[in-house]
């Protein structure tokens, strides 16, 4: 669970990303260990099954077999992206806590560098404010 004021900060941070990147439809906070989406900001309500798949996709892309095949340092990747069907999924691992990540879905024309930088910065800020461990 995301406790107290940290949960409020997380909600505010997700809102900020949605506001600043209009092409983002979903911004989600994911626990990679449990493969669960713990907090989500979405334009349209998403069924739990969809969120469960998103959590699995984030964990697989950042920690799974693909990442282990690629990563030489720790057998993982820090950023991942999948684009298909006109939708881009962006996953960024927290530099402060490797089992936390943010996931955004957006359109392919989104400035991917700016978005990933913002996601990374958000995760750092969340950790600095005593965010979810």
């Amino acid at each position: 669970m995301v406790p107290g004021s940290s949960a409020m900060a997380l909600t505010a941070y997700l809102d900020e990303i949605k506001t600043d990147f209009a092409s983002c439809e979903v911004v989600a906070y994911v626990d990679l260990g449990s493969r669960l989406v713990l907090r989500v900001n979405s334009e349209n309500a998403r069924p739990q099954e969809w969120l469960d798949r998103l959590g699995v996709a984030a964990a697989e892309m950042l920690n799974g077999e693909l990442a282990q095949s690629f990563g030489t340092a720790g057998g993982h990747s820090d950023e991942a992206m999948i684009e298909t069907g006109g939708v881009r999924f962006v996953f960024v691992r927290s530099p402060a806590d490797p089992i936390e990540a943010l996931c955004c879905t957006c359109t392919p024309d989104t400035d991917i560098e700016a978005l990933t930088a913002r996601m990374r910065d958000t995760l750092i800020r969340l950790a600095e404010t005593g965010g979810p461990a």
Partner: protein
Amino acid sequence: MTPQIHIEASLSLLAGKSDPIGTAGRIIDGRDGVSAIVREIDQTVLKRTLFIGNGEGGEIALDVAGRRLLCLRSINFPLVRRAYHRLCDKPLSEDSIDELMDLFELLEMFVERARDLTILTERRSSDGWAGDIGISAARLAEGWMLTLYPQAVDATAQPAPAEEEDEPGLAGFLRRCDGLYSAALVLEGDQPLSQIGDENALVALAEASARRKAPLALVSGLVDTGADAPYFSLLRDMDDGGQMMAVAGCGAETVLLMAPADNLSQISTMWQAAA
């Protein structure tokens, strides 16, 4: 074959010209046919190099041991040189893929029992940059996987001119991706890949991804898309100097890329155009 004839045949083989650069090699006249080459391989236990000539200056060097072909060490045929030069002039293009496929079909008659080939040569670009370049080919159940792995990246590489950006498909995508660490085009990507080398990250990547279309499978259910839908996926490892790897697929074809992370936007934009 009587024992006497067998011995005479063996003596005849031993009487072949010696390797001009070492005692472990032999020169075979390729005009004697594939059977002569296969016979040489069959009779080779300790490691040595076979030089197969065509009588007109063309030559292939094969490393052989344990009655099997280890690798294709060098080739010196006009057709091959042309293919190399085309390859060295620019990143893997559709034309050079076709030429390489022709090349490997040509070589197949020499290596009909081998699964993997490795060719090493030297790359020289028009601006004087030079470096080693490796080309590996792994034979799949159907088709080949070709891997191009320069040992250095041309830091001055620029995006292809605008007039070349209209080339469609994955081959065009590869052609427009400059400054890559590695690239591979996997044909019939559903087939398991054979091992090229332990240090070739692309092999493990291909086994993990191309065989099962892993990135596409992960978003199945999240996006309404078919099994053969084009997809592009990318991983970046910040701990590893920002190295980036991409897997792009369309139907039976998969492209694997490894590149500096600062090429992310360029590559993803090119992929959108190609897909």
